[in-house]
C-alpha cells in the first residue's frame, strides 16, 4: 500500500512536470442489461438492519438507481434465528426481531423472479478504537488517524467509516493484518485538506468495523476501481449467482473526534 502511494506520487510528480492536460470527453460506451446490486449489513448493536436492493444503470444515465421491489429477503444465523425482512421503502428491506451477535454466522437469502442469491458472513469480535488524533502527513498537510490494539493469533480485518458533521463520507477504507501480526495498528483514514477542508470544531464520527475475510476482499477490490490498472474489474462479491454488492455481518465500535484549532506553526513576521 505504501508502495502504491509512492508510485501514485511519482505519476503525479511526472504529470505536473510534463504539463499534462485533462478534459471531459464523450465516449460511446457499451451497455448491458441492468444487473442486481445487493447491500446488507448486520451489526452487533440493536437493529433494524437494512438490506438494500437496486439495479445498475447505463453509464450515460443519471445516478438514480432503480429499486428492486419484488424480492423475498430472509436472514438466518447458525443458532436458529430466522427472519423474513419486510420492505420499508422501495428497495429497502428491514429486520424487526433479528439480533446481531458476535461470533455467529449469518446467511442472507434473496429470491427475485425465482432466482436465489445467497451470502454468508461471520461477525468477528469487536475491537475498540484506542485513540483518534491528528498527525502530520509526509506529503504535507495533516492526517486524522486512529490507533487500535490488534487481537493476536488470528487474521483481523477492519473497515473504517467516518461521518463529518453527521454526513457519511463516501469511500472504502479497509485494512488487515494478514501479512504481519502487528500488536497495534495506526491507521490514517482522512486528510485535513479534504473537500471541504475541516475547520476547528468539526465533529468527526468514526466507526471501526471488524469484518470477515470475504467482506474485506469485497472492499479491497472495490477500491481498485481506478484508471491505472490494465484490467479493471468488478469487486469480488461474497454473494452467489452473479449479484453485485456485499453482505456484511460485523461488530462496530464508534468514537467521536472534534477537530482542534490549527496548531500555530512558527512563521516569519515581516
Amino acid at each position, binding site marked *: *500500500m*505504501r*508502495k502504491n502511494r*509512492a*508510485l501514485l*506520487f*511519482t*505519476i503525479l*510528480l*511526472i*504529470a*505536473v*512536470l*510534463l504539463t*499534462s*492536460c*485533462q*478534459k*471531459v*470527453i464523450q*465516449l460511446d*460506451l*457499451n*451497455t*448491458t442489461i441492468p*444487473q442486481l446490486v445487493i*447491500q446488507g449489513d448486520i451489526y452487533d448493536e440493536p437493529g433494524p438492519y437494512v438490506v438494500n436492493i437496486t*439495479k*445498475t*444503470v*447505463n*453509464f450515460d444515465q443519471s*445516478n438514480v*438507481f432503480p429499486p428492486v421491489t419484488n424480492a423475498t429477503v430472509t436472514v438466518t444465523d447458525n443458532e436458529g434465528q430466522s427472519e423474513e425482512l419486510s420492505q420499508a421503502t422501495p428497495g429497502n428491506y428491514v429486520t424487526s426481531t433479528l439480533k446481531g451477535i458476535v461470533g455467529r454466522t449469518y446467511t442472507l437469502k434473496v429470491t427475485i423472479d425465482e432466482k436465489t442469491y445467497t451470502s454468508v458472513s461471520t461477525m468477528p469480535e469487536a475491537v475498540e478504537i484506542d485513540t483518534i488524533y491528528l498527525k502530520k502527513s*509526509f*506529503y504535507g498537510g495533516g492526517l486524522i488517524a486512529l490507533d487500535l490494539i490488534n487481537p493476536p493469533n488470528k487474521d483481523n480485518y477492519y473497515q473504517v467509516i467516518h461521518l463529518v458533521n453527521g454526513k*457519511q463520507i*463516501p*469511500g*472504502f477504507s479497509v485494512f488487515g493484518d494478514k*501479512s*504481519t*501480526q502487528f500488536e497495534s495498528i495506526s491507521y490514517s483514514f482522512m486528510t485535513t485538506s479534504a473537500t471541504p477542508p475541516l475547520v476547528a470544531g468539526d465533529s468527526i464520527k468514526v466507526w471501526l468495523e471488524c469484518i470477515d475475510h470475504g467482506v474485506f476482499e469485497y472492499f*479491497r*477490490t*472495490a477500491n*481498485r*476501481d*481506478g*484508471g*491505472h*490498472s*490494465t*484490467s*479493471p*474489474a*468488478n*469487486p*469480488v462479491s461474497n454473494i452467489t449467482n452473479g449479484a*453485485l454488492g456485499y453482505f456484511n455481518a460485523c461488530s462496530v465500535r464508534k468514537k467521536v473526534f472534534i477537530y482542534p484549532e490549527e496548531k500555530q506553526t512558527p512563521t516569519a513576521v515581516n
Partner: protein
Amino acid sequence: MKELSSKGTASNTYGFYSLTLPTGQYQITAQYMGYKPEIQQIDLSEARKIDFLLESHENALGEVVVTSQRKNDNITKLEMGVQKLDTKDIKNIPVLFGEKDVLKTIQLLPGIKSAGEGSSGFNVRGGAVDQNLILLDEATVYNASHLMGFFSVFNSDAIKDISVYKGNEPAEYGGRLSSALDIKMNDGNNKKISVNGGIGLISSRLTVEGPLLSDKGSFIVSARRTYADLFLKLSKDTTFNQAQLYFYDINAKANYKINSNNRVFLSGYFGKDVLGLGNTFGINWGNSTGTLRWNHLFSDRLFSNTSLIFSNYDYRINITNGIELNIISRIQDFSIKQDFEFFLGSNNTIKFGFNAIHHKIIPGVITASSTVDMKTLTNKFAWENSFYVSHQYSFSDKFSMEYGARVSAFSSMGPGNFYTYDSLGAPVDTTYYKAGKLVKTYINIEPRVTFNYILNQQSSVKASYSRNVQNLHLISNSTSGNPTDLWIPSSNNVKPEIADQVSLGYYRNFNDNMYEFSAEVYYKYLQNQIDYKNGAELNFNENVESQILFGSGRAYGLELFLKKKYGRFNGWISYDLSRTERKFEAINNGSYYPARQDRTHDISIVGMYELSKRWILSATWVYNTGNAVTFPSGKYEIDGKTIMLYSLRNASRMPAYHRLDIGATWIVKKTPKFESSWTFSLYNTYGQENAYTITFQNNEDDPSKTEAIQTTLFRFVPSFSYNFKF
C-alpha cells in the same frame, strides 16, 4: 568479392569472418552500415588473415555511398523478421525531449509498437513488454526504462548498433517469447583520444574514448545525467521544491588485442533513478551489468567466444515517518556463455554453444529501525541452462537454409518455501526445500529453421518457423511499467510460456538497391500466457503465484516496409495490419479477446532531408489504432459511492493515436579537430490531444452525472541541445 560477385560473407558480431576461395588475385570490399566501405587488393596463395578497420561515415556525410555488390543484403541474407539500426543512422530522427533513443526509434519499424506515449517499452508482434529479451553486450537488462519509461537506459553515445529479432531469432538467443534485442556498446576509437558530448534542456552527456596500450586496444566511457528536478526548485510548493527527480547512467568498455588470435573485452553499465521527497520518502532503482568476454581463434575456421556475465536490477524504497522503513527488492544473474562458430566453407557454418545462468530474486525485504516484526518474502532461486546447435548451409546460389535447435532446462530451487494452492488460490500445502535442492525442472526443445530462396539479385522469398520458451515472467498490472514490477521464475505453480511462430516474407529492391521493400506475414500461437485474477493482490504478496491465471494466445499480421536508403532525402514507411488475442477460462467466458496491445493499424513514416551541408531536416509521423481497454458498461452505488460496472475484458478501444514530430540539425562547425552542432525538435508538432489515460468519475458540480476524463501528457514539447566533438 569483385571477381566473384556472388561470393561474400558477413562477419559475426565480433568482426570475425571466414571466406574460402580458390587461389588467385581478389579485391575484397568490407562494409558496414554507417561506415565507409573499404576495398583491399589481395593475392591469395595461402591462408591469410585480413583485418579491416572501417571509418565512420560521418566525415562523408552527404556523399553517395560507393556501390558494391552487397547492397542487397536484405535479399541474400539468411535471416528474416530482423531489423538492424546503427546509432549513426538515427541521430537525426526527432524524439521526445531531444534525447535520441534507440528503443524509441525501433518503435518506428514494422512489427514493433510503442507500449504507450513517450514510452521506451515496446510490443513485438503482439507480445507483452516482458517478452522482449534485452541484451546489452550479452547481459540481460531487466528494466530498460528511466523515469517511468520516458527515457530508455541506453545512452546512444555509448551504443554501436542494435539488432531486433522478431521471434525468429537464431538459436543462440533464447529466454523470451517475442523478440531478442541485441545491443552492442561502442568499442571506442583506437586511433586517437576524442571527446564528445551534448548539453540539453533536461540532460547532459559526455563521452571520452581513445586507444589503449599502444593501439592494441581501445576504451570508451560515456556518462549522462538528467537535471529535471532543477525545474522543481522553481516551484513555490514546498512538496515539489524539496523533491529529487533525476537519473544518471555510465557505460564503459575496453578491449585489448593480446595477439592475432586472442582478444578480450570488458564492458559495464551502471544506472540509477532517484526520486525523493525531502528526507521523508525516497525511491531509487537501477540496473547494473558487466561482461567479460574472450574471443579466441582456434584456427582460421573455428571461432570461440567466452563470456562471464553479471546483471542486477534492484529498487529501494525509504520511508521516514516516525520510524524508518526500508524496502529492498532485487533480481541478480550470474552467467557463463560459450559460443563456437565453425566455418566449414564460405557458405557452410555450424554454430553451437551453451549458456548457464544462476538467477536470484529477492521479491522484497522490509527492514525497520524500530523493533516491529517485519515479514520478508521468500527469496527465489533458479538455474537456467541451455545449449544450442545450428547449421547454415547453401544448397545452391539460390537456395539456403539455417536449421537448429536450442534445448533449455530451467530449474527452480531452494532454499525456500514452495506452496500448492487450491482452486480458490488458498495455500493448501507448504514444503520447505533446502539450499540447492531442485523443486521443478522444465526441459524444452526449441527448433528454429529459416529458408531463403533468391529469385534474382533484386528479390527473394524467405520462410521460417521457430519456437521460443520463457521462464521468467514480469508481474505487473499497471499501464505504465513500474520500477516495482516483479519478476517471478517458472515454478511448481508457474509453467514456462511457449510461443510457436511461422512467417513468410517477400523482399524486393528497386533502382539499383536505392529502395528496399519487404512484406512479411506471421502467425504465432502462445501457450501458458499469464493474466491476473480479478482484484489480484500483486504487491508484496508471498502467495503472488496464487493470483495468476494461465491461458493461451494468438497473434497474426502483415508487415509492409518501404525504405529509401540513400540520397539527400531518405527515410521509410512502415505499416502493420495485425491482431493479437488471449484466451483465459475465467475471462470473457473463455473466448478469445483482444490483448491490450492489440492495434489493428500501425503506421510510421520517417523522412530525413539534407537541405545543405549545414542543415538537416527530419520528421516522423505515426498513427495507430487505440489499445484495447476495459471501459465501464454501467454503474451502481455502494455506501453512497458510485461504482463502475465492467462486463467484458478489453471490449472497448482508446481513441486512435497520431502525432507528428519535426527536428532540425544545424552543423555549426565541422573540421577534423572540432565539430559542433545544434539539434532542435518539436514533439507533437500539431498538438494532437492524444489520450494517455481515460478515467471515469462523477461530475464535481453535479454528482448525479458521471463523466469520462481524458488525460493528455504531451503537446508541443520543444527541445534543443548543443553537441560537440573534438
